[in-house]
C-alpha cells in the first residue's frame, strides 16, 4: 500500500481541517445528518473527482459517497473513529486498513455486535492468508462494505444472500461467471429464489476453508453432507423435480461407500456435477447430460476411455423405488428369495433343535 498521495487543489482546505484535534468516539453522535468532523473530511473526499495515483501508476479513487455514510449502520460514528491513524493533513503515508476489532470485541463498551466470527475468520483461508501478509486476501470491510455497512438481512447489504455472489465475485471472477450460469445461480440471481444456495451456504462464511482442506464443507469428505442440507430432503427434491434422493443414493453407491470410508480418489457430488456449473441433466450444457456423460466419467484418473455405454442406464439408483426399473425388480427378487429361504431354514433348524433337545443328546449315549 505504498503510494504517493498526489495532493490536489484541496490541500489548503484540508490543512485547515487538520488543526482540529480528533474527537474520541461520541457514544451518542447524531444518527441523522453528517457530523462536523465528517463534513470536514468530505470537503476533499466528498468530491467524485478526488483521486490519487498509486506508486504502481494506478489511479485510486478517494471519493466517499455521503449518502452511503448516512445509510450505513455506522452512520453515527466519525470517520476517524475507524480511521484512527488519520491524525493530520496531509495524511501520513502507509495508513493501516481499518481494524473492526477496535469496537467489535467481547464486552466492548459501545454495544457493537460481536461474536466468534472474528476468531473463525482468523482461522479461515482468508484470515490465514491475510495474517501471512497477503494483502489481496479480504478483510472484514472487503466483504461487509467499508462505508456502507448494512445488516445481512438488508437487501442492499453486500453480505445479503442474494448479493454474496457478486461480493465474492469481485475477487473470484471466473467462479462467479460459472455460478451465474448454473442452476443455483440462475435460481438465486435471476429468479430471486432464496432457497438456492449462495456461495456461503456451501463454503461457509467467516470460517471458509480451502476446498481441499478437511475442515471445508466442500472437501471431498464433506461435500455430500453439505449438499444434503438441501438435497437430503425429498420434500425439497420433489419440488425441484428431482425424482430420487441424490444424497442417500450416492451414499449407497460404490462411489459413496468408498467416499465415506475415506477414499480420496473416488467421485463425490462435485466430481460429476461440477462445483459451480451445476445444471440439470436435461440441459445440454450440463456435465451430466447423457451426451456429456462419457467425458465426465472419462476424466483423467477416473474411467478413462468411457464411452456412450456409461450413459445407458440410470444414475442415483434407489433399489427400493419402482422408478429404478430393473434394479427394483432384481432387489425385490433377492428380498423375497432371502426372506423365504431363511424363514424355511430357521423353521427347519428350530424343529431339529427342539427334537434333539427333547431326545437328549447325553441320554443318547448313556448306554455306551
Amino acid at each position: 500500500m505504498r503510494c504517493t498521495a498526489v495532493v490536489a487543489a484541496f490541500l489548503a482546505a484540508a490543512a485547515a481541517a487538520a488543526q482540529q484535534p480528533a474527537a474520541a468516539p461520541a457514544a451518542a453522535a447524531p444518527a441523522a445528518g453528517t457530523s462536523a468532523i465528517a463534513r470536514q473530511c468530505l470537503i476533499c473526499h466528498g468530491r467524485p473527482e478526488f483521486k490519487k495515483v498509486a506508486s504502481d501508476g494506478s489511479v485510486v479513487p478517494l471519493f466517499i459517497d455521503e449518502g452511503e455514510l448516512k445509510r450505513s449502520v455506522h452512520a453515527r460514528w466519525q470517520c476517524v473513529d475507524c480511521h484512527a491513524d488519520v491524525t493530520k493533513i496531509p495524511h501520513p503515508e502507509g495508513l493501516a486498513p481499518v481494524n473492526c476489532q477496535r469496537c467489535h470485541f467481547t464486552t466492548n463498551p459501545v454495544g457493537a455486535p460481536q461474536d466468534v466470527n472474528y476468531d473463525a475468520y482468523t482461522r479461515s483461508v482468508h484470515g490465514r492468508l491475510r495474517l501471512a501478509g497477503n494483502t489481496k486476501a479480504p478483510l472484514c470491510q472487503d466483504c461487509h462494505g467499508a462505508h456502507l455497512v448494512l445488516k445481512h438481512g438488508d437487501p442492499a447489504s453486500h453480505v445479503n444472500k442474494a448479493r454474496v455472489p457478486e461480493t465474492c465475485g469481485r475477487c473470484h471472477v471466473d467462479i462467479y461467471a460459472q455460478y451465474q450460469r448454473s442452476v443455483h445461480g440462475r435460481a438465486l440471481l435471476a429468479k430471486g429464489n432464496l432457497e438456492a444456495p449462495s456461495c456461503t451456504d456451501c463454503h461457509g462464511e467467516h470460517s471458509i476453508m480451502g476446498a481441499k482442506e478437511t475442515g471445508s464443507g466442500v472437501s471431498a469428505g464433506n461435500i455430500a453432507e453439505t449438499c444434503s442440507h438441501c438435497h437430503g430432503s425429498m420434500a425439497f427434491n420433489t419440488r425441484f423435480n428431482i425424482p430420487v434422493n441424490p444424497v442417500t443414493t450416492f451414499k449407497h453407491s460404490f462411489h459413496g461407500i468408498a467416499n465415506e470410508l475415506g477414499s480420496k480418489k473416488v467421485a463425490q457430488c462435485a466430481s460429476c456435477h461440477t462445483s459451480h456449473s451445476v445444471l440439470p441433466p436435461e440441459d445440454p450444457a450440463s456435465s451430466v447430460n447423457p451426451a456429456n456423460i462419457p467425458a465426465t466419467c472419462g476424466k483423467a484418473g477416473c474411467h478413462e476411455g468411457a464411452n456412450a455405454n456409461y450413459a445407458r442406464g440410470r444414475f442415483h439408483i434407489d433399489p427400493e423405488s419402482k422408478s429404478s426399473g430393473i434394479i427394483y425388480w432384481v432387489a425385490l427378487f433377492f428380498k423375497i428369495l432371502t426372506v423365504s429361504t431363511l424363514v424355511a431354514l430357521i423353521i427347519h433348524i428350530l424343529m431339529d433343535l427342539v427334537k434333539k433337545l427333547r431326545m437328549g443328546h447325553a441320554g443318547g449315549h448313556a448306554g455306551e
Partner: protein
Amino acid sequence: MSEPNDALRDALAAELERTHRLSTEEAAERAARMEERVRPRFATWVRRELTIQRRKEKVAVAAEAHGAAAVAATGEEFVRLSLELRLQHALMALSVILLVVTGLPLKFHESGWAKPIIGLFGGPDFSPIVHRIAATGLIIAGMWHLVFIVATREGRRTFLQLIPMPQDARDAWQQIKYYLGRTGDRPKYDRFSYVEKFDYWAVYWGMVIMIGSGTMLWFTEFFLRHVPKWVTDIAKEAHSDEALLATLAIVIWHFYNVHLNPHKFPMNRTFITGKISEREMIEEHPLEYERIMEERRRKTADDGGES
C-alpha cells in the same frame, strides 16, 4: 409316559437278553437300571438305541446268512470326504471368510464397525485388493471342483449322488413328520440327505451369482466397453443381495448343521479328518451303510468262493 416306557423297557430287556445272552431276570434288571439313569428321555433313547442295534444286526444277519464273518468292526470310521474334497472345502471356506469380512462392511457402510474392519484390511484403497485375492481363491476352488466332477471317477460318482431325486422330497416330508412327532421313524438317508444336497446346490447358485457379478464389478471398464451401464448396475445389486443371503445361510444354516446343533457341538470334525464314526454312519446314512456292508459281504463271499 409310564405306559409306553413299560413297553419300551420290555423291548429293551428282550433285546439285552438276546444280544448279551442274559437271563430274563438279569435283562429285566439291567433294563430297569438303564431306565433309572435316563428316565426323562428314556423313550427316545431306547428307540434310537434299538434302531441302531437293528440296523447293525440286519447287516450282520445278511452276512451270516451268506456264511461270512461280521463285516464291520466296532468303532470303525468311514471315509466321507476325500483329501481332495477337504482341500476344495478349505480353499472355499478361507476365501469366503475373507470375502465376507472385506465385503460386508461395504453393504453395512453406515454401521460403526464398517470403518474399523476396512481399516484392518488397509483402508478403502487396499481392502478391495484383499477382496480380489480372496475372490481369486474362490474362483480357483470353483474351477477345481468343476474339473473334479468331470474328470475324476470319484468326482463323477459323488456328483451323481448329489443330484436331487423325488426320494429327497419324500425324505424331507417324512423328516418334518418325524420332527412334529407324527412318525417315530426318521427317513433312511443314503450318502447325501436332502439337507446336504440343498447345501451343495445352494453353493452352486451362490458361486454363479457371486463370481458372475463380481467379475463384472472387478472389470467394470472392460465390460462397459461392451454392455450398457444398467447391466453393471444389476451386477452390483445382485452381488450385494446374494452376498447377504449367502452369509446368512452360512452363519445360520451351515453353522447350525456342523457346529451348533447338539449332536455336533462344538464341531463336526469331518471337514478336517474326512471320516465319520460307524454310529453316525448308521444313524445318518443307513442306506449307504447297508450298501457298503453289502458290497463287503459280496466281496468276502466272492473271495471265499475263489479260495
